[in-house]
């Protein structure tokens, strides 16, 4: 069995006076969509930020494809693409310029830059607005720019933090389809959401967080158990 793409081990983190994570552990594998579920404030975003090396854990460790987040943060970031919950883009740059900027910062070489940017624009069907300034784009189009910039360096790990929360039905479906496609390409997709319905449809395995602790973990079917759906299972776990 190959080692886990992402291994989170007994992670603890306090921000200010708030003990956000209280020793959580889970593993995400390549070729799967792993759901990090829980209500707002459960600690999902903090966990993703620690995996992305933006925050340092107080105790515990995170290993990404063999690299420790504390010891080799730049190597970790090279292998991770994150679609953040807040989809900010540079308004005065075009969609293409936004993507190219992140590609360059992620180490895509000049000779390869245009091909890579064109490829993600094509893959996400962004051709019709690629040269428009980002300030004139719709929320769905901006979300595509955010995804494009996160994947343009072809990372092995993709993390989505509440990616559909501000999107309409069509745009949400496109995001879900993209996650499925990424799984088929062998990527490890970590999907953080409080929308359990979405998670149930997409995730191979899930971990449910509540108040900074893991309250359930396993395949989606295992966590759902005998309940009608994941939402019912979750409500029983946290009540």
């Amino acid at each position, binding site marked *: 069995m190959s080692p886990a793409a992402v291994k989170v081990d007994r992670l603890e983190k306090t921000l200010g006076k708030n003990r956000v994570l209280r020793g959580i552990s889970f593993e995400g594998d390549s070729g799967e969509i792993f759901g990090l579920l829980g209500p707002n404030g459960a600690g999902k975003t903090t966990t993703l930020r620690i995996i992305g*090396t*933006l925050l340092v854990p107080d105790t515990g460790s995170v290993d990404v494809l063999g690299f420790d987040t504390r010891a080799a943060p730049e190597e970790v*970031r090279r292998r*991770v693409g994150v679609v953040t919950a807040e989809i*900010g883009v540079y308004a005065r740059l075009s969609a293409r310029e936004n993507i190219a900027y992140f590609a360059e*910062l992620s*180490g895509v070489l000049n000779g390869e830059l245009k091909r890579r940017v064109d490829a993600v624009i094509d893959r996400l069907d962004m051709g019709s607005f690629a040269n428009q300034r980002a300030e004139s784009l719709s929320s769905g189009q901006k979300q595509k720019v955010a995804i494009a910039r996160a994947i343009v360096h072809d990372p092995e790990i993709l993390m989505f933090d509440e990616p559909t929360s501000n999107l309409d039905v069509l745009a949400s479906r496109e995001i879900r389809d993209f996650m499925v496609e990424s799984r088929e390409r062998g990527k490890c997709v970590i999907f953080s959401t409080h929308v359990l319905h979405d998670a149930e449809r997409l995730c191979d395995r899930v971990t449910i967080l509540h108040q900074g602790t893991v309250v359930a973990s396993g395949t989606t079917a295992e966590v759902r158990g005998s309940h009608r759906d994941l939402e019912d299972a979750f409500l029983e776990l946290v009540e």
Partner: protein
Amino acid sequence: MKALGIVFRKEMREILRDRRTLIAIGLAALATPIVLIVISQVTAKTATQAYTVGYSGDIPVGLDTLLTATALKLERVSDPAAAAKKEVDLGVVFQPTQIDEYYDPSRQGAQIADTRLQTVLGQYDAAKAAAALREKGIDPALLNPIPLKVHPLSSPVKAAGNAFLSFFLPYILITMVFTGGLSAALDATAGEREKKTLEALLLTPSPRSRILLGKILAVTTISLISAVAAIGSMLLTLWQLPLLGTRVTLSPLAAAVMVWLAVLLAASFSSLTLALGTLAKNFRQGQAFSTPLYFITIFPASIILFIPNFNPNLAYYLIPIFNAVLVLRDAIVQNSVAWPALGVTTASLVATALTCWYATLRLFTRETLLIRS
């Protein structure tokens, strides 16, 4: 260092597409010439404007001609003292043995008219005394036994022009270097947070120090462009427009010193304003933080303006900003550079820039940078 260049190019592209910054630079380039044109017209008008002297009594023979030639218009009034309060610029009562003058020193017109009257009366008295001595066969030179002959070592008119430049240029330089890059600095830090792009930027593998250096370089560049635009337009206007009776020009040495100081100041200010932007939650809060800082930076320039003959020892050149004003003042007024002073100033400003950069980097690498968002 590749990330530095990538960030610099992107920041410059964004800045040059930002109307706020371009308008600020354009206004800076236009505002100074407009102020100078107004000053020039006001000074020209003041020099040629006629002022009214309300008088009573009999004017001594010939004095009326002298007064009129000096643009003092004579107007007979019943009560010169009362008229001098409002209707005329000066009130004068001519009596056979003395002249009484009434004027209000709080009125600028009255002050100028007073100066002109004193000058005319001095010349008139001297001429009358000389004529009386001549009538008695005495050489009028007796009145001036040790004549003074003045040999100015430089053109007094040019000196007045240099004094004006040394008064105006440091002020414009500091203001434009500070404000020229302010919007760009806040946009590159607080703006990133406000636009929600900061997290994505920090998730790239590029080291934060390089990202920050790229931003500093872009803000420094735009500060310099802004300062050079404002000072260039000012010098062009002064060259075209006689001010204080002369065309004021900056010597090549003073210009070189000014550009060097602008580079050093821009490097310090860009780090400082980026630090403020990093501390601020949004662009508006960043602007609120910057206002007191602007007054602190402009304070040294203001102090020196009120101490024209201030000759400091070398230790004063350790004080950032203050030292830049001193060096620039000396370069303009004396058209020379005291190299030890410039060396200390350079070391002081480089140390300031590095300290500011380090402080900003510390802020930029703290976890709270993200938590604040």
